[in-house]
Structures are given as C-alpha cells and as structure tokens.
C-alpha cells in the first residue's frame, strides 16, 4: 500500500526529502555525534513524514514538523540507550564553566571534531537545546515547545549546557579516532 499518493504527492514528498535531508542530517549528527545514528534517525523521520504526507504537505512549514519528529526520535533513542540520566535535568552535572570561560573555550576551538565529541558528551536534552538554539537558530519559545518545557528552562539549560561543553573541551580526553566516532563513545557521559 502506497501511503504517499497520488503520484503528484509522491513527487512533492521526494522534493521535500531532497531539500531537507541535509539540514536534518546535520542537526541530528550534531545531537548524536554519530553519522550512522544520524542517518538512521533521519531516515525514520522521513518515513514518518511520508506516512502523514497528505496532512503534512498542507502545513505552513513541513520542515518544522519533520524537525520536531527528529528531535523526539533522538531523545527517545538516547533514553533507549540509557544515555540520559534518571532526571531529565540532572542537578549533579559536575563542574560547569562560567559564561566568560565557556566563551573563551569555544573561541579557542580549532579541532571541530573535538567540539562535536564534546557536544555528544552532554545529556541528550542539553545537547538538543544547544543544537536547536545555536545551530537551527530557533527562538527560545520554539525550543521550549519542541522539548515540552518552559522558556526559562531552555535558557537556564542552554547556559548550563554551554558550561558543561566548555568543561568537556577543556578537560575531555577524546580518543585519537574521534574524527570518526564510534557508537561506544556515546555512553561515556
């Protein structure tokens, strides 16, 4: 049974997928730190969009719908891997760099693979907040809506996550193969 029909709708979906796989993939790669996982999750996202395409195609911005699905899949996948802590917003985060220190650490990043590695060390929701705010450039309200939390939680989590990111950059010891990260690294949070 073809859920994307008639033929014109199928072609519409194909164009949508062709236009949006790249930003979805990069968003997911930044959130997961793993290309294969990102590919799988984007594929699952496109599959779900395709199933609902007759409804999605009439939306003002189908890509925003796809991104929401993707973020939820990433977070669900993180839960499944027991990568996320017992609390959604753990208090025991360890040391966090102050904003000024974090900004300096980010400014001094010259190994972008190391940056992605450090990002992948964050709890999934913290990583999601940073990626959605500073890569996708979504407003705080939109990020809060996607993650099902308050705007204040988004801003405080962004600050906390940035501090942890800076700490990971300053003190982390990613393996020499970090430019091609393996799935096993994802558990080292």
């Amino acid at each position, binding site marked *: 049974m073809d859920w994307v029909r008639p033929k014109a709708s199928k072609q519409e979906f194909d164009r949508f997928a062709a236009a*949006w796989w790249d930003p979805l993939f990069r968003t997911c790669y930044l959130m997961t730190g793993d290309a294969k996982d990102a590919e*799988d999750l984007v594929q699952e996202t496109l599959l779900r969009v395709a199933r609902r395409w007759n409804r999605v195609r009439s939306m003002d911005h189908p890509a925003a719908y796809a991104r929401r699905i993707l973020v939820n899949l990433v977070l669900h996948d993180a839960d499944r891997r027991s990568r996320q802590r017992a609390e959604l917003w753990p208090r025991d985060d360890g040391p966090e760099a102050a904003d000024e220190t974090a900004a300096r650490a*980010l400014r001094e990043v010259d190994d972008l693979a190391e940056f992605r590695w450090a990002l992948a060390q964050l709890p999934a929701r913290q990583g999601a907040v940073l990626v959605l705010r*500073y890569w996708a*450039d979504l407003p705080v309200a939109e990020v809060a809506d996607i993650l099902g939390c308050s705007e204040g939680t988004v801003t405080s989590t962004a*600050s906390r996550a940035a501090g942890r990111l800076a700490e990971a950059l300053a003190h982390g010891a990613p393996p020499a193969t970090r430019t091609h990260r393996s799935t096993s690294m994802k558990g080292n949070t």
Partner: protein
Amino acid sequence: MPTEELETELRRAFARAAADIQDPEQAGRRLLKHDYRPGRGHRRLAAGITAGTAAAAVVASLGLSGAFGSAPASGGDTIQTTAFTLVKHANGTATLTINPKVLLEPGTLQSDLRQDGIPAIVTTGSLCYSEPKPPGFSQVVNASMPYTVTINPAAMPAGTELSFGNFRTGNGNFRTGTGEQTIAILINAGSYTCASTPPRGILPGGGLAIGENRAPRS
C-alpha cells in the same frame, strides 16, 4: 541566560562544526534512495548499502532534476530548493536567488555553496562579521536582480569567506517563514564575530541586503 558573548561563540562554533561534517552526500544518497512506504525494513540502512549502489539508484528512483543535486542548466549545475536556487556557471561564478517567503535553512545553503567552491558561513537570526571589514566585497558579490546575486569566488581575497545572515522581518515567524531577509558580507575566515544585532555600519561598502537595501531589523 547565556551572555551575548557566549551565544556568539556558540553560534560560531556550531556553524563551523556543522560545515565541517565530512561527506554527508553519501548519507544523502542512501536516504533519498529509500522507498518511503510503511511496512518495509528500513532500520540500519546505513550499514546495508554501498555508496556506489546508492549513488546509481538515487537518480533513477527519484528523478531529482531541478530539486536536488546537479541538473543541467545553461552549461552549469543547478541546486534548487524551496528557499533558494543556486546555479553554478561554467566560468566559475554562481548565481544565488533567495525566495524571501520561505525560511532559509542555513546548513543546506552553506553546504551547497561550499560544494560550489564558495567558502561561506550561513546563519539565521544572526550575522557573522569581521571588524575591520575585509575589502573586495563588490568584486565578489553583485546584485543582478532584487533577490538574486552573482558570486565570483575567484575574486575573494585569500583568507576570506562570505557570510550570509538570514533574518525574519515584519510579522514573519519560523513556522510560516514569511518576511525573510538575507544579508551578505565578506569576513575574515580566522577572525569574525556572530551576533543577532550586527553593527549598523556593517553594510555600506562591504555588504548588501538581498532584496532590500537596508540593515536587518534589531
């Protein structure tokens, strides 16, 4: 709430890290090859298909001419999305046309520009800029129509990149994607700042607002 300085560095780091992702095209070929119907095995496709097989199959299965990747257009290559059209010409220049009614996805344009040999950083809601402005912008970017610019990467001074900042204007919002405005400037690749409210004097002599000749709304 993170300080503005920290937010600037975060935007900059994310723009660089996303642009640095290696060879996403192979993943794209596999993703587009998939037959998006329910009830099919679809998990772990990434490990199951060789890049060569996927590359050969994707064009045949989707007929992507005009929608993605390379399609013949006046002796060059055309990349067309709902938000922009990028045409690479045989003489090395490229023509970029922005659709002001559709939200610009920064990663897509950035990777497509780089694919066409144009080093660029693309952001939404912010603009990356260098102070002082590197010279030569008028030799690199020319506005040929209201929403169309011609880019000559060969004229870019060594060590520079183009910076495109996409802003929502008027009543535009992310979901509807209305009222988009894109600022283009030249920056020093090794020294720039990204901000949601770039200096007012950033455009004269060193950049342009595609479609509207004014600075972005604060």
